[in-house]
């Protein structure tokens, strides 16, 4: 009887999940006209949105609500009022509200319940990171299991092209277009095979030279942008420290503006290089594009992170991240405008030869991963940042959907959707999540919290909160098991070794 009820329970959960399925009609419409690879972008966006909703819920309930219950009036100095500029800069009035780390104080115990804000803050964020990590790891593992074929299949794959006809495409025009594309691809693959893929040594040298040149240019662009951000941040630090008038505050917008501008423009250059380079397979082309973009974005983020040490620095970092997220949002919208709408106008009215643009799944997914990385870094410094992220993703979903239907055509090259999905999830985990996790871990383990604000003020490091708590717990016999767990497991290296083995 129990097995049956277990099974019924499992199917009940699946049915409930289906009932709560957000945007199912839209997904079906997009998949029906554009196929599964474009659909994978929207599914990715939806799962990131749900992740942020979850993060908001736990942060709000465990950290913000107790803080608000204790002291719901923000301690605002007398001459600071709310001006509209705050929505953009995140500074000024917002600085003193619960949006940032600085407003949370350790000495909070209401009359009835002793609620340790320090521990709550630390553990909530830690638990959230662990759960996120587990979720991303799990989806990566299941994706790898399904799509374990990572190497190029034997032969030109005309059979593959035929067998992987996308049955979920239901729009008549889309079906006709796919048939056209398939015919073109079949002819291409046949002519490739008959020509043979042996190039003369001279041609090989030429290709190699072009590749080398492109890589050199793209890396030097990334380094150049990194330098620019470095000097800009230095300037900001020197100037802003002096006074805090509205004009100066507007100047703090300069760094995020430049960062987002770089993130928008430089990848377009990288896509341009693709036109000159000839890759042996489409997949290598996408890998190269992804690697270059990741190098650019990670180096910029790295330089910014290096800069953030200041007085009540956690809130400053939180503000900087807030600004980055806001500008990233604006520029994503701009990117949609330039990338898709303008391309369509150019392609149809002015230069008819170009045609309607394709929806660039790779670039858009990388933008999403970057946005989520910002949020993950920021969550320690600004617990309510997920609110902004949720709003951003909601608007982005509808914007991209409208832009897709109005401006784009389905991708010309059929196939490879499943492998792309695996690569994207792997990218989400490795640089993005692990990077932000290590940054937050480094911050909480080694850096001294600032002296005058936040829940951890006065301590040597954030982690000492746990140490203190454990020491106090030793006096309570009922909690002896927790102390034992702490002493033997968390402290021992064997635990981490085992975890690493399990993950790998």
């Amino acid at each position, binding site marked *: 009887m129990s097995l049956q009820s277990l099974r019924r329970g499992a199917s009940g959960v699946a049915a409930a999940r289906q009932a709560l399925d957000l945007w199912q009609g839209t997904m079906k419409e997009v998949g029906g006209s554009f196929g599964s690879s474009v659909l994978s972008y929207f599914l990715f966006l939806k799962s990131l949105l749900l992740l942020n909703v979850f993060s908001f819920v736990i942060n709000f309930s465990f950290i913000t609500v107790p803080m608000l219950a204790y002291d719901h009036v923000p301690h605002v100095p007398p001459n600071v009022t709310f001006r509209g500029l705050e929505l953009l800069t995140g500074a000024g009035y917002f600085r003193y509200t619960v949006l940032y780390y600085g407003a949370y104080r350790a000495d909070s115990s209401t009359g009835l319940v002793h609620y340790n804000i320090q521990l709550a803050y630390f553990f909530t964020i830690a638990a959230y990171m662990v759960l996120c990590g587990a979720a991303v790891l799990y989806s990566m593992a299941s994706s790898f299991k399904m799509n374990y074929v990572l190497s190029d299949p034997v032969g030109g794959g005309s059979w593959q092209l035929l*067998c992987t*006809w996308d049955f979920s495409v239901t729009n008549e025009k889309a079906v006709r277009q796919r048939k056209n594309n398939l*015919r073109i691809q079949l002819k291409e693959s046949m002519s490739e095979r008959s020509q043979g893929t042996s190039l003369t040594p001279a041609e090989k040298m030429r290709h190699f030279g072009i590749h080398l040149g492109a890589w050199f240019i793209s890396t030097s662009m990334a380094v150049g942008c990194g330098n620019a951000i470095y000097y800009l941040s230095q300037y900001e630090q020197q100037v802003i420290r002096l006074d805090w008038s509205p004009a100066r505050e507007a100047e703090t917008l300069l760094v995020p503006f430049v960062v987002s501008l770089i993130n928008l423009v430089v990848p377009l250059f990288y896509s341009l290089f693709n036109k000159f380079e000839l890759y042996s397979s489409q997949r290598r082309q996408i890998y190269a594009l992804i690697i270059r973009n990741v190098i650019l974005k990670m180096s910029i983020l790295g330089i910014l992170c290096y800069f953030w040490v200041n007085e009540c620095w956690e809130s400053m970092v939180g503000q900087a991240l807030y600004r980055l997220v806001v500008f990233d949002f604006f520029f994503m919208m701009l990117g949609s405008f330039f990338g898709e709408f303008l391309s369509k106008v150019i392609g149809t009215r002015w230069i008819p030869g170009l045609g309607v643009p394709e929806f660039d799944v790779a670039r858009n997914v990388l933008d999403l991963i970057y946005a989520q990385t910002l949020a993950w870094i920021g969550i320690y410094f600004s617990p309510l940042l997920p609110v902004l992220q949720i709003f951003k993703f909601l608007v982005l979903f509808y914007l991209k959907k409208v832009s897709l239907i109005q401006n784009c055509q389905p991708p010309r090259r059929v196939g490879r959707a*499943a492998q792309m999905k695996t690569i994207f999830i792997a990218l989400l985990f490795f640089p993005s999540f692990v990077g932000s996790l290590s940054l937050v871990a480094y911050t909480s383990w080694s850096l001294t919290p600032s002296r005058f604000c936040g829940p951890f003020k006065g301590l040597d490091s954030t982690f000492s909160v746990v140490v203190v708590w454990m020491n106090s717990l030793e006096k309570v016999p009922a909690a002896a098991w927790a102390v034992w767990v702490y002493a033997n497991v968390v402290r021992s290296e064997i635990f981490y070794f085992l975890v690493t083995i399990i993950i790998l």
Partner: protein
Amino acid sequence: MGATASHLGKDLLSEYQELTFLTKQEILLAHKRFTELLSREDKNLPDPRAPTEAILTLPELKSNPFRERIVRVFSTSESRDGLTFEDFLDLLSAFSDSATLEIKSHYAFRIFDFDDDGTLDENDLEKLVNCLTGETDETRLTPDEMKQLISNILEESDIDKDGTVNLSEFQHVISRSPDFVSSFKIVL
């Protein structure tokens, strides 16, 4: 049987849930869409069969190049014409998200086997390519291109070199293509 055309009994519903890969909601939706396809007289029959023309009006199948083959493969009648509700559920189950690779490749093979003889020979492959590239004269491949393509295909997949592709050779090729499972999908 405990089902009239308008209402699905609870025992039958859970039985269907166990036998197919579909969830309860998907089965109920399938039932609703299926009864819409039936004519008024058929609705009162104990085990109604929806005619092929009606099934081909479903938006999910209307533009599919393999729609007629799909109905033929899943039909259990003598003349391979029309689907009962259980045939319809089999169809949706094979094309659902949770169906396994073996099930999907098995049905894909049967759908591509145009002459139903258990192997994919040159005629089947030719019909397959025409299905997917277009039916009008200007969109078809030329006879030379067709011959070249078919010999490429047989070179890639015919392991025992008997000139045809049987089920295990087909499944072997499919197993090397991770996109197959996500493409072979129809959801109501």
